[in-house]
């Protein structure tokens, strides 16, 4: 059961105007694991991540071929609502993106979109989400101050909490530690390891070391192509492909 497939990507290609960003990706992402996608800049990591909850829809002039299945159902199927998909597949961006409202309102933003307005229910959701993101103790006395006054690391954990408040099934994290110091990074990695009990996590790591610290499985992308995918340990110690080996050992990148 723990090895069940959450997301399958089937022959998925993605184009900006006519510029290909992803080419014929085939990949299976298992439930309740941390799955990392790494590769050099412009290798298509973010595009792949944003395709998983269709945030790429917001960009004009893009198209895709192939498909992505979530729990065996096509996410591009016209019959499924995009907003429902995005609630199930939450995303944390590479830079902290608190909205300029209070900490409480940031976390409650998603649940309120869903029509939850009861004060008591919202209080519970906010507390639970902040505890899961290991931020509660630091902010419980100032929930109604602006989220912009938090430090960078706290803001990023706030963004994680904001996604968790929707109780999604999948968490997409796009270099969530890119702007953070080592201590905040360690905090967030700790949080991720705790979260994988309940969530499927897809992580674009901030560097190779981060992938090796937290990821169960890892995929290596290069110029929009999937070079190889497997258990993290094997990718880093016995890569099958020469290009993976070169990148992992720092010969390019």
């Amino acid at each position, binding site marked *: 059961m723990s090895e069940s497939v959450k997301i399958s990507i089937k022959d998925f290609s993605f184009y900006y105007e006519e510029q290909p960003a992803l080419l014929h990706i085939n990949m299976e992402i298992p439930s309740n694991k941390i799955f990392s996608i790494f590769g050099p800049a412009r290798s298509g990591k973010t595009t792949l991540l944003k395709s998983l909850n269709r*945030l790429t829809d*917001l960009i004009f002039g893009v198209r895709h071929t192939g498909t992505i299945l979530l729990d065996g159902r096509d996410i591009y199927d016209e019959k499924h609502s995009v907003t429902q998909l*995005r609630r199930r597949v*939450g995303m944390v961006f590479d830079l902290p*993106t608190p*909205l300029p409202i209070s900490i409480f309102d940031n976390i409650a*933003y*998603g649940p309120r979109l869903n029509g939850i307005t009861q004060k008591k229910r919202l209080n519970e959701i906010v507390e639970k989400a902040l505890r899961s993101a290991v931020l509660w103790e630091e902010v419980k006395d100032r929930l109604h101050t*602006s989220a912009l006054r938090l430090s960078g690391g706290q803001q990023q954990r706030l963004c994680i909490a*904001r996604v968790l408040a929707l109780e999604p099934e999948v968490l997409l994290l796009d270099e969530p530690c890119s702007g953070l110091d080592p201590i905040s990074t360690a905090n967030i990695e700790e949080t991720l390891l705790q979260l994988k009990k309940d969530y499927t996590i897809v992580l674009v790591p901030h560097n190779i070391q981060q992938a090796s610290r937290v990821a169960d499985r890892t995929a290596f992308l290069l110029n929009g192509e999937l070079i190889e995918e497997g258990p993290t340990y094997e990718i880093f110690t016995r890569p099958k492909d020469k290009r993976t080996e070169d990148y992992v050992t720092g010969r390019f990148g």
Partner: protein
Amino acid sequence: MRFYQSRYLTQGLAKILIWVASLFSIAVMILILIQILSEGIPVISLNFLLDHPRSMGREGGIFSTIIGTAALTGLAIIFATPLGVGTAIFLREYTRESRVSRIIRFGTDCLAGIPSIIFGLFGFIFFVIYLNLGWSILSGGLTLASMILPTIICTAEEAIKAIPYSYREVSYSLGGTKWQTITRTILPNALPGIFTGVILSVGRSIGETAAVILTAGSSLVMPTSIFSPIRTMAVHFYILAREGVSMEMAYGTGAVLIIMVLLVNTIANLLLNRYIRQRT
């Protein structure tokens, strides 16, 4: 050596010119204020504010014109704000840069440059005569609304444009629909900018004369509904001064007009600063 000297000379000259320019602008503004206020403030009393004008405005107060100004400005803002903000949202969130959006933008830019008397003429022909609304608060309000619409569209569009893309992305990624994203993220963040446009428009509406005479009339009778004709303070001032009714009363009216505009601006700024402080 000479090169360096000329550079410093240019620098010094530029500084002097810029200082002169700003001092001159401020001086003009202060002179106008002193002129109107020193002549006008002695005329202002509680009776002046709360009495109706008598004998063509030679005696009594200006109460009905204050009411007229407030009604006309209020109506113009009520009509123009939703239309203008709606257009701005359409331009930024519902359409990309395209032929349609360029035509709308070109149209509003042109509209902004048209003299107000032309709006007055349009209002007179269309609202007063064709729609048979007569000289009334409604005709005047609609005319002023069309006049301030470009300002509101333009400032609202700028305000919406300034919102980071990441805010939209966050709202959509949390499962927001387009409408939810607009009402819960875009509008609250654009509010200070929209507000600035509305306040500018209030100032223009309060001071407008030409378009108002042609569409709202110049009746001194207290209005009873939006179909009544009225006289605004600006029109009152114009008629008092132009027809030599009473320069004293004209200055009094002018002073009240200026104080009202200053008050509106001050209060608006206070409210705006409080709103911005709450969010950061």
